[in-house]
């Protein structure tokens, strides 16, 4: 049994880390509602503000095309996730449910691709997309990231847990393979599908490297690239409150998504996410 002294120590430790995690979030919220002049007049930053203002948010949306970045990211995220789901579901279905010659070989090949780091293939992809004249297009942004061997693997494993007898029962009733996929497998595998979707959305929302390589036209910047642009050329380097307002706007969607689905997300990440 724990002594109460130990308990206090543990709570102090946990509280301390919670503080370290939350402080940057607090700081960005706080700074984003301080006025430009009051922020710059504080040599020692003040930990609260008595005169919160929303003018920084107005600046963030007017001085830089923040709404544009936002919209781009939304389009990119939705399109990439949607296309990827189709690709992943079809492949997982083929591996889990259909019998065909060469299945094991192809699956082994797929698995071995999981070991290939993205850094290695991004160079050629950059050249490919450039040569296809797809720089600064959504097609160029989206195409290289619509397949994930890992998610195919995850979903295939899930599909295989569906009892064989359901398939046999459906077959005796004259259900075609694709109808079986739609009416039985997808509904049963829904939790996994949701997990994959959420993980992919997080990944897309934070995508930085590929979009940065493939876009130099501000009209196609995603939020990550946009933030970098803001930092380097945005409101004038010193308008930190406006910067923080932009950071808040960019962070909010994912934080809300997380708070809504936190158990699902944490479970999904524990099952197979890595930071990336």
């Amino acid at each position: 049994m724990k002594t109460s002294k130990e308990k206090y120590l543990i709570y102090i430790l946990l509280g301390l880390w919670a503080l370290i995690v939350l402080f940057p979030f607090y700081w960005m919220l706080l700074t984003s509602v301080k006025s430009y002049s009051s922020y710059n007049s504080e040599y020692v930053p003040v930990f609260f503000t008595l005169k919160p203002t929303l003018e920084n948010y107005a600046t963030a949306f007017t001085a830089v095309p923040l709404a544009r970045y936002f919209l781009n990211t939304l389009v990119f995220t939705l399109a990439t996730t949607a296309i990827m789901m189709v690709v992943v579901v079809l492949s997982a279905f083929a591996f889990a449910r259909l019998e065909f010659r060469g299945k094991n070989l192809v699956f082994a090949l797929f698995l071995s691709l999981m070991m290939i780091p993205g850094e290695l293939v991004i160079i050629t992809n950059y050249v490919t997309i450039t040569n296809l004249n797809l720089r600064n297009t959504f097609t160029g942004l989206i195409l290289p990231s619509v397949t994930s061997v890992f998610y195919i693997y995850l979903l295939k494993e899930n599909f295989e847990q569906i009892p064989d007898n359901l398939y046999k029962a459906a077959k005796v009733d004259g259900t075609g393979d694709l109808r079986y996929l739609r009416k039985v497998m997808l509904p049963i595998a829904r939790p996994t599908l949701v997990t994959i979707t959420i993980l992919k959305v997080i990944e897309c929302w934070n995508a930085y490297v590929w979009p940065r390589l493939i876009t130099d036209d501000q009209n196609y910047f995603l939020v990550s690239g946009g933030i970098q642009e803001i930092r380097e050329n945005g409101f004038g380097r010193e308008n930190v409150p406006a910067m923080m307002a932009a950071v808040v706007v960019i962070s909010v969607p994912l934080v809300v998504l997380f708070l809504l689905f936190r158990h699902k997300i944490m479970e999904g990440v524990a099952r197979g996410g890595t930071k990336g």
Partner: protein
Amino acid sequence: MKKDLTAWLCLLPAILFLGIFMIYPLVDVLVYSFEEGYNFASRSFWGTGLYNYAYVLHDPFFIQALKNTFIIVIITVPLSTGIALLISLGLSSVKALRDFFQTVFFLPYVTNTLAVGLVFMILFKKTAYSDGLISLLLQIFGGPSVDFIDGPYWAKMFAMCVYTIWIVMPFKILILTSALAGVNPMYYKAAQVDATPKWRIFYKITLPMISPMIFYLVITGFIGAFKAYSDEVALFGTDLNAAGMNTIVGYVYDMLYGNSGGYPSYASAAALILFAIVFTITVINLMVSRKTVFYQ
């Protein structure tokens, strides 16, 4: 056969995309790395050989990037794993507020690295108006006034490591907490009945039981830290060479694109060197684990 056709049709999109964006590039990057003097505009080269590798290995920017990457790896991987273990142990021994803490601790995972990096930059940066919050805090304890963003190398590295650890912690805490939850309580009860001291329970039961997961975290931690890049950009901006804070991956991208870009051959050579390093480290890790990790 009709069945075969359906299956291949289902696989077609995946095979197509993987072929174009994974398998072909894999071959291509090897080819690039041996093509000497490749010209991006005319797509011509004047020879094949190891020149690209030699160039990269003699490039002071690459040496700097290599050094930075290794320092980040060596500092952040053990430190973050250790702290995560401590926090997870604390987390699994309390009941009240546990869900709250778990949620809070996971928050950094779902944030945009570049966006939050900006906040860290503000906290660390010394400007004309303020020394920055962290620096001011240190001064309370008698420290000097330091600019962690544009100041001395060790200060920048300190800021870098702090941010890296902050970013990688959620994943590690999550994995370790679920690993700890997975240890069958009957072992603890059995140990308690035998009047085993707490530290002994930890070393002899808890640690061996979760060692596969710790090992998994160390491996993925190494791989992830070796590929560090966007966290650096978040703190120091896109021109990492100028800041002296470039990493290997950053070097690869700089060679490919941007002001110093246009050299896919150098980029390929650097990427393959990175791959070789990561591969070697992973193999070493696997060999070490075979002796130390307990598998059920």
